Each structure stands twice: as structure tokens, then as C-alpha cells.
């Protein structure tokens, strides 16, 4: 009897997705899909608004990574007022970077401590009531407190810069609207009210050590679980260093061969196309010259470590070298290494924040905003926590937006998440007489490693029902699981 297994929604991801696995009458996996069924609409909704509203409007795409959308849009809108990234004032660039790295720091902390750590600490067969951060808090108080404090540090820094932890404002067309005050800066340096940035670096290092030790005891799992070859995409500085705020687009194949050679963000449209599928609202971006099947790339922490030549902060660079030494490869294609890579980036962000907080330029009073010659097109590309994020706007001669194209990080990972689901379906679920909850959880573990933000990827409105369904080959519902 053929069956269809549905996991709806996938839990502990940002937004809601649904997985269906179709088994044939032998119990072997026939097909599997990771569906995104939320509504998409921001690209259309924003048309007709004045360009200067974009950096604030697009923040509403997400409550987790609004800063990334704010800054990607701001970079695009800078171009509309005639300012390319290299012409922004040093003060504005540094304050925006500080905001950006604070955002990635808190987002990575959220993902690791709140979402991923239950999978690593309790294992995939742990009962569902244990696979959550409350159980982590009960059994590993120190880890939970550190996680919460690290997220708080990042959010407090965002609040100090943008006025609010969520949906604040720092960037305006051509710069920033305010500077940083000494007392704000000292709050993050002196450690009087919250642990200071030095402590954040120390804790980030400890988390990287945690993953190294975890690797020692779980190497096979990390190496093999949902491992498959793919391309990798991210941005780098001209010398090949990891760059998260303003870099050139670089992609490699699964063995490290360059497939996109340090392309300027303005030229992205020459190299990328986006496909659609009837079973998902989420798009599938791919490299034009490689075609739909071979041209898709993973993005995010693991991809970024794969494509860069080095990390330009010493502790994170040391951690990167150890990561590749432990992996025994120069390109990592194992999904679960994403968690490790994310923690190395967390450390990198803490180091960058430390440098920026000690830079006297961030306390400057002048040169907040610059203006150039008005243009009718702007493109901003940034490395968001989950990967390469593209905002592209076109405006008419009155400054009203006529076109908006968003390639959100999670959409780049769309194919990868589908591959990960397929891997688990074939290796874990296929030909099994009984499908256990633990088996289904492994599907979610594979997706969760990509830290998908489905709300961003589809620009969603509304909420999804919460259920898992099992159908026979005639479409009859034979099992239903309510997950909340």
C-alpha cells in the first residue's frame, strides 16, 4: 500500500513549512517535498511606495532578522540617492556594520541555543516534550543562561543603535540618522549592567569548543547525516576574506571549483535566475550558466566558510582552520556542520563588534548622510544570518518604487532543504514497517540545520495549522498528529 507522510508544520524553524513523503506500495520512498505554503506578497505590496520608505517597510518581512532586510534595502536605496557602498561615510559604514554584526550575533545565538541545541543535547529519538529550550534550561542551566545573555547582548546593541530591538531604524538613504553615544558604547564595554563584549567573545569560544568536543563523540553523525554535494554561495572581500556587509559574490561547486568569480553585487541579475514550483511559494534561485539542476547553491554559515579564503579576525580564523582540519576536507558538504560553522561566525561577529566598539569613529558627530546624483535603480546585497540576501528596487522619476525583487537567503537553500529531506526519507524512513516520531523528527533536524526563515522567504501573512497527516495510496487519512 502506498502512503503519504506529511509533517505540518515543521517545528523550531522561523515560520511554518510542511513536508510530504510519498511511499510506494513497497514502503520505499517515491518522492519527497519540502512545501512552503505561506503567502508571498511583499515584492508586489511595496510597489507604489516612495523609495525612502523601503528600508523600514521591508523590516516587516520578519521579526527575527529585520535588521538584515533594513540594511540590504538601505544599501539599495543608497544607490538611488547616488551613493555606492564605498562612498558612504566611514561613520555610517561602521555604525551599519555594528548593527549588522549585532544582528547576526543574536540571530546565531537564538538558533543554536533555542532551536538546535535540543537536537544535539538530547538526540533525535528524545521524546518531543524534551526537544525544546525549556528542557535545555532544566538540564543545562549554564548553557541556557549563556544563550539568553548572548542574545540579549546582541539585541541590546541593536536597540542602542536603532532605537528598538525589533523594527528599529538606523539607516536612512545615504547614511545613518544618528550616531552612537559614549555612554551607549560604555554599556557594552564596562560589564557593569550586562556581561561585556570580552565575555561574549569568551563564551563564543566556549561554544566552538563545545562543538569540537561534540564532533569527537559524534563524528559519523555530523559527517554523514544529510550530507550531499552542492554548490556554495557567499560574499568575500577582494582579497578573499569573509565579508558579511559588503562583498563580492563568490560561488564554488561541491569540490571547490569557482563557479561565480567574485562578481559585483550590481551585476547579480546577469548571473542568477529564479525558478518556481507548483508545490511551494518559495522560489528556487540558481546560477544561469549552470542551469536549473546544477546551478543551485547552499548559503549561510557553512557555505560562507567554504567559499572564503580566510576569516579576518584571529580567533574565528583559528577556529575555521580547526573546523576544516577536523572535517578532513577543504569543502564541507555535510549539513550538520552548519551548526559548527554558525558558532564560528558567532565568534567572528563578537570579535568584529569588539573592534568596532573600540573605534572612535563610531562616536563621530558629522558626516552622517551623503547625497549624490539620483538614479532609478538600486541593488543591495548583504550576508544575512541565513545567507546571501538581495534587495533590488527600481523607481520612477518621482521616486516611487515600480519594481522590487527580493532573493531571500532561505530561498537559496530551498533545493538544499529538499535534498536534505530526500536524504532522510531514503536513509531513515524508506522500507520501514513502522514510522516513528523520532524518524519524522530527523526530517526536521535536517531542515533546521539551515535555520530557514520561511516568513522571510515567502513574505508571509497569517499562520498555519499544526498537524501531521498520513495518507494511504487512495488519499484516505489513516493517521493524524496534532503537534501542539
Amino acid at each position, binding site marked *: 500500500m502506498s502512503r503519504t507522510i506529511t509533517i505540518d508544520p515543521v*517545528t523550531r524553524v522561523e515560520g511554518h513549512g510542511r513536508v510530504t513523503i510519498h511511499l510506494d506500495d513497497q514502503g520505499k520512498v517515491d518522492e519527497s517535498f519540502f512545501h512552503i505554503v505561506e503567502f508571498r506578497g511583499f515584492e508586489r505590496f511595496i510597489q507604489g511606495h516612495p523609495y525612502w520608505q523601503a528600508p523600514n517597510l521591508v523590516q516587516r518581512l520578519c521579526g527575527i532578522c529585520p535588521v538584515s532586510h533594513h540594511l540590504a534595502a538601505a544599501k539599495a536605496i543608497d544607490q538611488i540617492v547616488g551613493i555606492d557602498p564605498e562612498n558612504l561615510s566611514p561613520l555610517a559604514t561602521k555604525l551599519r556594520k555594528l548593527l549588522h554584526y549585532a544582528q547576526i550575533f543574536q540571530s546565531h545565538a537564538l538558533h543554536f541555543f*533555542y532551536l538546535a541545541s535540543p537536537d544535539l543535547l538530547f538526540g533525535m529519538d528524545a521524546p518531543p516534550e524534551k526537544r525544546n529550550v525549556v528542557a535545555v534550561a532544566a538540564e543545562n542551566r549554564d548553557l541556557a543562561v549563556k544563550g539568553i*545573555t548572548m542574545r540579549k547582548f546582541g539585541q541590546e546593541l541593536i536597540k542602542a543603535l536603532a532605537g528598538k530591538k525589533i523594527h528599529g531604524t538606523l539607516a536612512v538613504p545615504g547614511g545613518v540618522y544618528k550616531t552612537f553615544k559614549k555612554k551607549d558604547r560604555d554599556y557594552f564595554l564596562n560589564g557593569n549592567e550586562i556581561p561585556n563584549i570580552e565575555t561574549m567573545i569568551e563564551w563564543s569560544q566556549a561554544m566552538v569548543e563545545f562543538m569540537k568536543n561534540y564532533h569527537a563523540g559524534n563524528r559519523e553523525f555530523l559527517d554523514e547525516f544529510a550530507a550531499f554535494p552542492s554548490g556554495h554561495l557567499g560574499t568575500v572581500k577582494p582579497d578573499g576574506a569573509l565579508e558579511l556587509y559588503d562583498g563580492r559574490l563568490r560561488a564554488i561547486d561541491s569540490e571547490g571549483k569557482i563557479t561565480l568569480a567574485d562578481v559585483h553585487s550590481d551585476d547579480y541579475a546577469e548571473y542568477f535566475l529564479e525558478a518556481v514550483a507548483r508545490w511551494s511559494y518559495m522560489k528556487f534561485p540558481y546560477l544561469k550558466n549552470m542551469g536549473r539542476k546544477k546551478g543551485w547553491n547552499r548559503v549561510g554559515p557553512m557555505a560562507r566558510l567554504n567559499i572564503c579564503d580566510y576569516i579576518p579576525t584571529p580567533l574565528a580564523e583559528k577556529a575555521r582552520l580547526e573546523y576544516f582540519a577536523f572535517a578532513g576536507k577543504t569543502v564541507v558538504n555535510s549539513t550538520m556542520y552548519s551548526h559548527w560553522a554558525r558558532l564560528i561566525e558567532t565568534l567572528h561577529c563578537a570579535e568584529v563588534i569588539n573592534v568596532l566598539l573600540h573605534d572612535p569613529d563610531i562616536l563621530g558627530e558629522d558626516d552622517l548622510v551623503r547625497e549624490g546624483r539620483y538614479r532609478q535603480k538600486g541593488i543591495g546585497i548583504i550576508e544575512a544570518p541565513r545567507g546571501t540576501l538581495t534587495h533590488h528596487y527600481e523607481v520612477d522619476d518621482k521616486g516611487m518604487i515600480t519594481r522590487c525583487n527580493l532573493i531571500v537567503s532561505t530561498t537559496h537553500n530551498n533545493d538544499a532543504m529538499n535534498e536534505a529531506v530526500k536524504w532522510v526519507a531514503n536513509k531513515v524512513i524508506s522500507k520501514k514497517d513502522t514510522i516513528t516520531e523520532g524518524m519524522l523528527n530527523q526530517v526536521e533536524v535536517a531542515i533546521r540545520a539551515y535555520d530557514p526563515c520561511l516568513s522571510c522567504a515567502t513574505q508571509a501573512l497569517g499562520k498555519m495549522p499544526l498537524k501531521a497527516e498520513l495518507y494511504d495510496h487512495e488519499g484516505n487519512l489513516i493517521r493524524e498528529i496534532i503537534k501542539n
Partner: protein
Amino acid sequence: MKKILLLGIGNSGRADDGLGWLFLDEIEKRYPGIFAIEYRYQLQVEDAELIRHYDSVLFIDATQEKIPEGCAIRPCESSGSFYYSSHLQSPEAIVYLAEELYGRVPDANTLHICGYDWELGNRPLQAALENLNRALKLFHDTFFEIAVPASQEHKSEPVTL
């Protein structure tokens, strides 16, 4: 004087879901500086760290529940039950986490205000605003009277929104 935190949950772009925030706006107008106020779309794990710094916390949210009086204040008991999503915690789970992680739990209560319309929209229904008015009165007559010394009381005014 007790340190009191009012934590309003909601979304002002979702009609009656904005009641929690409107409640805070009104409290700030009527009793400036007396309460610490925080606006939230959803409660998150780190709110456990926040509430531990207070003697008393009141979570305010719109509810789909049908309450004859239009609103209700209830004790918020610690509970380890956990919602499936990362960014949506119950007040009870936040209190539980504060107890587990920091060993300190403020006196916690929830204020439920009945709403009816959850679609996109900036303004709550008139019926929901009437419930908000009732909630402000209830807050003044019960929670506020206990929490703030009589010498600092302010008169409760009707809501005009």
C-alpha cells in the same frame, strides 16, 4: 515601592490584536513613570531574564476567549509546557524559565482583553475598545490598588481612541 513590569503582547497592525499595546499606551498616559512598560509581538525566552528584575509582572494580551466581563486578571502559574515555535512562549513558560534559570519569580498575573477581529487593520473594533476600557478600570480597581500605594493613585479616565 514595588518594581512593576507591564508586558503588553500584540500587533497594532492586526486590529484587535493591538489591545495589549493600546493598554500600555493608555497606562503611560494615565500613570506616567510608575510602571516599567515593554511592548512585545510575542513573548520570547529572554523575557525570563527580563522579568526576574521585577517584584511583579502583568502580561497583557488580547484573547479570543469569551469572557462575560470582556476582560479578566488571573494569576500566572509557572508551567514548563512549551509551545512548538521558537518565538512564541506562553506567560506561564516565561515564569517557569525565570524560576529554573534565575531562581527568582516575580508575582505574575495575566490580563486578558477580549477581541473579535484579527485581520489586517490599524484600529480595533468599537466592542474591543469597550473591553479595553473595562480592562483599564479592572486594572485600576484590583491590580493597581494592590501594587501602588494610595498616595500615588491617579483617577481612571474613560478611553478616547
